[in-house]
């Protein structure tokens, strides 16, 4: 194709590239979300059992899918970083985490909004809800762990390890409705079986998910640019920060 992709693995080259990509993904996000909302509110019919409350599905399912999807992508970048010892991979993982946490929070919130009118309860401690809540804790843990470690290289690698340790939770969330008798409904959209929902509903859901995905890419790229600029100011990998160096010097001369 003629493009040397490895050129963009340096943060300095990636910064302007990301800058050019963001408007495209933002536009795609706006269009897709707009179309999804239109289909969801003006084309999809009223549900027989749940009335209009079911329309929450058009944000609940996309946010839930994105929360799991982003975690897996983040863990993949973390694994790449650990395997290749590549700083940009860790930076991508760092950029994804807050967006993933936000979608997890929204999945839980919209789920509660849907649960109250349909199940009669804001929250139940069934397998899927509990494991999604655990996912939120995992995102927060990753972000806090990174924030607590001053040494950049160690922060990158420690949060990467933690992200990978927690990736086992994602299949648990996904399969929990199949493994346990939970209150949460089972899979309505399957790759093989015919959908149990009206086609317009499925379409709106998928379009919204795609829109959220484009949004996530745009926001992640923007945050990645911030991370690149911030790291340029901070001491690089392997070098001590000025504060640490002074502390060490003081320790050597001052005694135990």
């Amino acid at each position, binding site marked *: 194709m003629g493009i040397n992709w490895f050129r963009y693995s340096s943060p300095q080259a990636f910064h302007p590239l990301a800058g050019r990509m963001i408007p495209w993904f933002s536009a795609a996000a706006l269009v897709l979300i707009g179309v999804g909302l239109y289909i969801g*509110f*003006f084309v999809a*019919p*009223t549900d027989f059992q749940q*009335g*209009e*409350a079911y*329309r*929450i599905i058009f*944000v*609940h399912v996309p*946010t839930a899918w994105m929360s799991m999807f982003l975690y897996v992508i983040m863990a993949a970048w973390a694994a790449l970083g650990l395997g290749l010892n590549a700083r940009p991979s860790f930076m991508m993982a760092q950029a994804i985490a*807050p*967006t993933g946490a*936000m979608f997890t*929070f*929204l999945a839980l*919130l*919209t789920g509660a*909004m*849907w649960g*109250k*009118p349909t199940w009669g309860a804001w929250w139940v401690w069934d397998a899927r809800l509990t494991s999604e809540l655990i996912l939120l804790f995992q995102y927060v843990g990753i972000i806090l762990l990174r924030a607590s470690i001053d040494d950049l290289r160690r922060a990158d690698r420690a949060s990467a390890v933690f992200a990978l340790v927690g990736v086992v939770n994602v299949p648990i969330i996904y399969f929990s409705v199949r493994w346990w008798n939970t209150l949460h409904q089972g899979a309505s959209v399957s790759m093989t079986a015919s959908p149990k929902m009206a086609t317009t509903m499925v379409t709106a859901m998928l379009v919204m998910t795609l829109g959220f995905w484009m*949004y996530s890419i745009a*926001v992640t790229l*923007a*945050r990645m*640019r*911030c991370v690149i*600029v*911030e790291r*340029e*100011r901070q001491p690089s990998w392997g070098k001590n920060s000025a504060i640490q160096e002074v502390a060490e010097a003081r320790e050597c001369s001052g005694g135990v």
Partner: protein
Amino acid sequence: MQWGSLTEFLAMGGYGLYVWTSFGATALCMVWEVLAVWHRHVSAAAGRRDLS
């Protein structure tokens, strides 16, 4: 168009509170996130200019 009027649309068959809280919170969070990243970008760029 399946909604008789704007009032019907907002009421969402009685479930308006739940539906609009969900969509509203989602929209709010996404807008907030965009603004937060924008703000972070501005501070990061400003910080860099200070050093040089």
